[in-house]
Every structure is written in structure tokens, then in C-alpha cells.
């Protein structure tokens, strides 16, 4: 600061002090605001913190204000900033800032000397006044909100624990309790039944028995008396009786090893085998961890098994899968696989319904009156292709399967092109009356068919002559792609 007139130096010192005070004040407001927010958070957790919540909130508020004030006061004050502030506050027309800059210059012109003298004279003539205006920060204006919230929270009872707000059904304890009850019920069932009763009939016999109207053997917890020992609950506990019955319980539990192999029974069904294979592959694995090759193997296997179950179970069940595989979307491929599996389950259900003489056409009296209809026919509601096959019930596909329909009425189909990545892909969009009936085929597979149809249509003069060349050009452009 050497070279400045004493008046300028005194002025700058005053400005610095004022500026630090104002910054401290401003920082205190801001710190108080953020401290109040922290206090609100502390009071919101009053239930967990306990009686310390209110003192802690007050401490946070005070610490915030104090920290803000300290940070504001400790900030460096630039000399030129102070000079400009003084110029503005004292209406000195940048005399102080200019003097500050030119006072340190090695060569001073006569005008600079005059400037310094003029500035000094003016400063000494000025009465002391406040130079840094008080600026209230936005946080100070908003401070009332967190303070009000803190007061309300301090006066209100503690907020409930968030964990208790979760429904009991989803809590880990409830789940563990449910599992325990389920296991207990299973053990009770086994304990009341003899080894012969516990051995389940093969599925074929069971189906036949059900079909004949016989009631299947009890499988629910019908006789839990063995494990419902109330000897120790009574006021006069009979411990010897409890011990005596315990031997019986241990014997029943020992029979567990002699139980039929439910897993092999489960695996005896080809549907179950398919399901098990799916679960083995999908369990514990994420879709992204399955390689496309592994997924392809799985789907091929499912398709093969599906054909064994149902001759009509074609690859169209896996259209979504192939589409997703082409795009490298393993998530969607797995989802498509799930859909195919759902179809297999539906077929199984229809097959079982047919064997039990339930479902199918019998509940549909109107359908019985109309007689037997084939797939692809029109029913009385006018819906196309909602076919009914003997013993299979009503088809869920409103317009039949897309590929079959494509072969029969190709005019209802359209070609839709799309650019996916670098490779252009053209697909045939087969619209249906419902979204479930939509299907997609690679355009390469249907392009020749469409071109033949086009030539036939032109040859039969079904298209106006003026459009012949245009249509041929269109197909030619498709062929070039």
C-alpha cells in the first residue's frame, strides 16, 4: 500500500472493515438458513433422537449462522473492489480507483499528481458515512419457512418410524412367520397320514379319478391334532404327556424320508419338465448374463418340446424372441421366452380341461347351437377367425395365427420398413383386430410372394393401366434394397 496518500489508505481500510462486516452478516443469514434446514431434519427424526432433538436443532441453527458469518468475514477483500465501492458510495466518479491504479506507476504525469491531490482533498472534506449498503440475501427472506417448520416439529409429537409405515405383509418378520407356519402345516399333514396315504397317485390316475367324480385324497392340513399339543398351555402343565406325545412326533418326522419323490412326480410331466428346464436356466440368472447362444438353445429346446406337445405349436410362438435376438435385446428375448412358456401352459390347461370334459364348447351354449365351426370361420358377432376346435375351446387368437392368415389372405398384410442400426430391416406387419394377433415376418420371406401377386393383379387388369409402371418401379426399388 505504499505510495497511496494516507487519506486513500484510511478510506480503503474503512471500506474493508465495512465489507467484512456486511459479508459476515450476509453469511450469517445464509448459514442460518441452511442450519435451519438441518434443524428441521433433526426434529423430523425426533422419535429416533429423543430428547436431544430440540437442543440439537438449536445447535445446528447457531452453528450454521456462526459458520456463515465466519466464512463471510474471512473472505479476501480486493483492494480495487473496495476502491470502486468507495467511489460509488461517495460519488467520487472513479477517482479513488483511478488514483489507486496510477499512484503506483513509475512515471506520473502532472495530471496523475493532480488527480491524487484532488482525491485526497475530496476524501478529507467528506464526512464519514456508511459505504457498503446492506444487502439482504434471498436465504434471509426464506428463513422464516424452515424456522416455522422447526417450531411446528418441535411442538408436535414425534413422527412415526418409516419402517412401521410399511405394510406388515411385506416386512421380513411377517414373511418369516408365514414361511414358518407353512412349513409347520406341511409337517402336520405328513404326520397325520400314513406312508401309503402320503404316496401320491401318478398324474394319469389322479386325472382319471377326478374325471370319475371321486374326491382326491386329502392333501390339506386336515388333521393337525398331532401337533396341536395344548398340554403345556394349560394352567396345570402335564409335562409327562407332552414327552409321551413327542415320541409320536419324532416317528412321524422320521417318515419324511419315505415320502414319495415329489420332484420326480413333477418331472414326469413333459410340461413340467419344460417348466423345470426354463427355471433352471432362468433362475438366479439375469437376462443380460444369458448369452444369445444360450437363449437360442433354450428356445430351440422349448420349440421342440412344444411341437411334441402340440403339432400346431409353431415357431410363430417365438416371433418376438427372434425379433429381440436380432436387435440384441436379451431382456426382450427372455420376455418372449416367458410368453412362449405361457402359451405352453395355456395349451396344457386346455388339454387338461378337455380331458376333464370341462371348458371347451360345453359352457358356450350358443356355440353348441350353431354347430361345429372351424378355425377361420365367422361367428355370429361377425368377428373374423375366432375359431373353435373340438375339445380345445375358444381360440384366444381373434384372427387366427398370423402366418396361416398370411398364407390365406396376403392382401391384409403390409410391409413396414425400419432402419435398425446400420442394417436396414424390412418386416411384414400383420395387423389384427387385437394387439395379440399382430405378427411380424422378415420382408425377404414374403417379397417374392407379393411380387407374384402384383404380377397377377396387373395381368388380370385389377389395377388401372396408368399405375402399372409406378407399381413395378416400387417393387423394383424394394428389390434393389
Amino acid at each position, binding site marked *: 500500500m505504499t505510495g497511496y496518500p494516507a487519506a486513500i489508505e484510511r478510506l480503503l481500510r474503512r471500506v474493508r472493515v465495512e465489507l467484512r462486516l456486511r459479508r459476515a452478516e450476509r453469511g450469517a443469514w445464509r448459514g442460518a438458513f441452511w442450519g435451519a434446514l438441518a434443524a428441521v431434519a433433526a426434529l423430523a427424526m425426533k422419535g429416533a433422537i429423543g430428547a436431544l432433538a430440540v437442543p440439537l436443532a438449536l445447535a445446528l441453527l447457531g452453528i450454521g449462522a456462526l459458520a456463515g458469518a465466519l466464512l463471510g468475514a474471512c473472505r479476501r477483500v480486493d483492494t480495487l473492489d473496495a476502491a*470502486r465501492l468507495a467511489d*460509488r458510495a461517495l460519488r467520487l*466518479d*472513479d*477517482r479513488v480507483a*483511478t488514483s489507486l491504479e496510477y499512484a503506483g506507476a513509475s512515471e506520473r504525469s502532472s*495530471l496523475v499528481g493532480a*488527480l491524487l491531490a*484532488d482525491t485526497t482533498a475530496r476524501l478529507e472534506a467528506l464526512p464519514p458515512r456508511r459505504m*457498503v449498503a446492506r444487502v439482504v440475501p434471498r436465504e434471509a427472506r426464506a428463513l422464516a419457512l424452515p424456522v416455522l417448520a422447526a417450531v411446528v416439529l418441535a411442538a408436535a409429537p414425534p413422527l412415526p418410524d418409516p419402517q412401521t409405515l410399511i405394510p406388515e405383509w411385506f416386512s421380513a418378520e411377517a414373511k418369516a412367520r408365514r414361511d414358518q407356519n407353512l412349513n409347520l402345516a406341511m409337517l402336520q399333514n405328513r404326520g397325520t397320514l400314513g406312508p401309503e396315504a402320503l404316496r401320491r397317485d401318478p398324474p394319469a390316475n389322479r386325472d382319471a379319478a377326478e374325471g370319475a367324480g371321486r374326491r382326491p385324497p386329502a392333501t390339506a392340513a386336515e388333521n393337525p391334532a398331532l401337533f396341536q399339543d395344548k398340554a403345556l398351555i394349560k394352567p396345570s402343565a402335564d409335562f409327562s404327556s407332552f414327552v409321551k406325545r413327542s415320541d409320536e412326533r419324532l416317528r412321524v418326522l422320521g417318515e419324511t424320508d419315505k415320502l414319495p419323490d415329489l420332484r420326480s412326480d413333477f418331472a414326469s410331466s413333459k410340461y413340467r419338465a419344460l417348466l423345470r428346464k426354463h427355471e433352471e436356466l432362468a433362475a438366479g440368472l439375469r437376462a443380460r448374463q444369458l448369452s444369445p447362444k444360450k437363449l437360442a438353445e433354450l428356445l430351440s429346446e422349448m420349440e421342440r418340446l412344444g411341437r411334441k406337445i402340440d403339432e400346431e405349436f409353431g415357431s410363430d410362438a417365438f416371433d418376438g424372441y427372434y425379433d429381440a435376438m436380432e436387435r440384441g435385446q436379451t431382456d426382450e428375448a427372455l420376455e418372449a421366452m416367458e410368453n412362449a412358456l405361457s402359451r405352453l401352459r395355456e395349451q396344457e390347461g386346455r388339454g387338461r380341461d378337455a380331458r376333464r370334459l370341462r371348458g371347451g364348447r360345453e359352457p358356450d351354449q350358443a356355440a353348441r347351437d350353431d354347430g361345429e365351426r372351424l378355425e377361420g370361420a365367422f361367428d355370429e358377432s361377425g368377428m373374423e377367425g375366432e375359431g373353435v376346435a373340438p375339445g380345445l375351446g375358444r381360440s384366444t387368437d381373434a384372427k387366427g395365427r398370423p402366418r396361416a392368415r398370411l398364407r390365406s389372405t396376403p392382401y391384409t398384410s403390409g410391409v413396414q420398413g425400419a432402419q435398425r442400426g446400420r442394417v436396414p430391416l424390412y418386416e411384414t406387419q400383420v395387423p389384427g383386430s387385437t394387439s395379440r394377433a399382430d405378427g411380424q415376418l422378415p420382408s425377404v420371406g414374403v417379397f417374392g410372394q407379393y411380387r407374384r401377386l402384383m404380377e397377377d393383379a396387373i395381368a388380370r387388369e385389377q389395377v388401372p393401366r396408368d399405375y402399372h409402371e409406378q407399381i413395378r418401379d416400387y417393387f423394383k426399388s424394394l428389390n434393389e434394397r
Partner: protein
Amino acid sequence: MSAPAQVESFVRAFTGLRAEVEKLIVGQAEIITGVLTGMFAGGHVLLEGVPGLGKTLLVKTLAQSLDLSFARVQFTPDLMPADIIGTNVVVEDAGGGKHFQYQPGPLFAHIVLADEINRATPKTQSALLEGMQEQAVTVGGVSRPLPSPFFVLATQNPIEMQGTYPLPEAQLDRFLFKLQVRYPAIEELNAILDRTTQAHTATVQRVMDGPTVLGFRALIRDVPIASHVRDFATRVVMATHPQWEHAPETTRRYVRYGASPRGAQALVLGAKVRALTQGRYNASLEDIRALAAPALRHRVILNFAGESEGIDPDTLIAQVLDGAPAGTTRTAEPVLS
């Protein structure tokens, strides 16, 4: 002479000169101050206004107040460059021999009034503007310096545009200030009538000579200017450029080209003159603000949108100043935060 005495002398001379001009010119104090500021800053001034507002009278009165040579050129479409810069003519000496001799044109005067400059062809305008910029003219391959101080005051009429040749942007840039002469108020008009319709006419005295003007010009260039004031002038000029990253929205929308570096020079020099006229030894931010419009209004080129919407460059410059370009603090808050 000490600096305070020099400044005091300048203030006295400036005030005296203005008082002499105001003997004949009623009102238009801003225009008179602007013309004098331009002259002491060493630049040329373009006066724009409808006919009859006293533009020519102002310049003639100023020339009478100064002990300097004065020439007036009425620009017309058939005016040729040689008519203003001079030409070589054949003269016969005493012995009967003939030789070429340069006859200087009206440009060889200290104060030149280029009346209705936009009526001359671009060729003639260029001849004048070359002299304004280079302080010299070239005739017959010989460069001839113009007298110093050399001060051009040009006038143009903004409404009679038929048959005119508007000055191109590059030539407008040569003028330090462009002052817009506005219609006088009622009181001023009454005073004009009183002064011009009576038998008594005011006489103007010469209060300043050429060397004094040159001395004041040198003094003005010594006026200190703080770096933040200079930076403010730079940022104001840059804010008229639509390509500048901090340019305001109005500039981006309506301006094709912003002010040139000559604009910044005009701002700083004008600010120094203004500071001295107020007896101040330094240029301030307020000086820059006061001179922004006359120094920049003819240097801001509007685009089609600006022209079609009738955007006034003065309004645009005011918005630039209101935007308080970065680096300048108007309130205490930026310093506090």
C-alpha cells in the same frame, strides 16, 4: 503551467467557446457540447437532422469563434474530387513559360463544413474521407498534408433520401461522433425567433486559436483512465457484436455488425474530454455511458429484422448499457457475494 492550471484553462476555454456559439444557436446544448468534444478529441463529427435546425449555422459560428480557417463545401451530385482536394492547373510564369501548379481545394482549411455530404457521389465522398482519416490528400502522385488542427463537420438530411448516396459503413466509421439534431422546444423556438427577426444581431468573437486547440488535445490524451473504466468501454463495444458470447439478446436479434475498434477509441477519448470539461482529472464510467450513443450509433449496423422493425440504434445502445456488461459492478451485491 501546472496540471490544475491547464485543466482550469481548458474548462474556461471550453465554456467560453460554447458561450460564443450559444450566442447564435439557441438550445441544442447537447449538440454544441458534442461538436466541441469531438473537436478537442481530434475527431470529425457528423450532424444529422432535418433542414432548418441550424446545423450549418452552428458550424459557421464555431468557425468564427476559433481563429482558424474555415471552408464550406456544398455537396452535390456533380461535385468532383478535384473540387474539394484541389488539382494541378497550368499557369504561366513571368517569362511566358507554362507549368503545372497545384491549386489546393477547400479541404485545405482547419474547419471544413461538408454540407449535405450524402448528396455527393461516393467518389467524392471517398476523397473527403481519405483526407479525414489520413490528414493528407494525394494529388498528382504527391501527398499533401492538411493543416492542423483539421476538423470536418458534415451534415446530412435523414428524410430526403431521393437522389442521395448514403455513406457506406466504412466511411461512417471515420466520424468520431454522430450527433442527431432534434427539433427545438417551444421556448427555444421563441428565442430563435427573437434573435433572428430583430435588427440587432449578435457578433461572435474569436476565443481560441489553432495552437491552443492542439495543446488541449495533447492534455486530453494524458487524462488517466482506470482499467475497469477502459474495460467497461471495451465491453460496451463488444456487446454490440452479435457474435460475442455475452452479447445481449437485442444485439443478437437485430444487429448485423457491431462497432469497430474506432468506436472504443471514440468512447475513451470522448470520456477524457468530458472529464476535463467537468474539471475532473480522470475518466469515469459515467463519461463512457454519456458518450456511448454519439460514439456508437453510426457504427452499429442493423440486420434486416432490425431495419424492418424500426429498431433505433440509440435504444439498442441504451439496452447494452443497462445490461451492465460483465466486469462492472453497479451495486454492492456482486462484491458482497
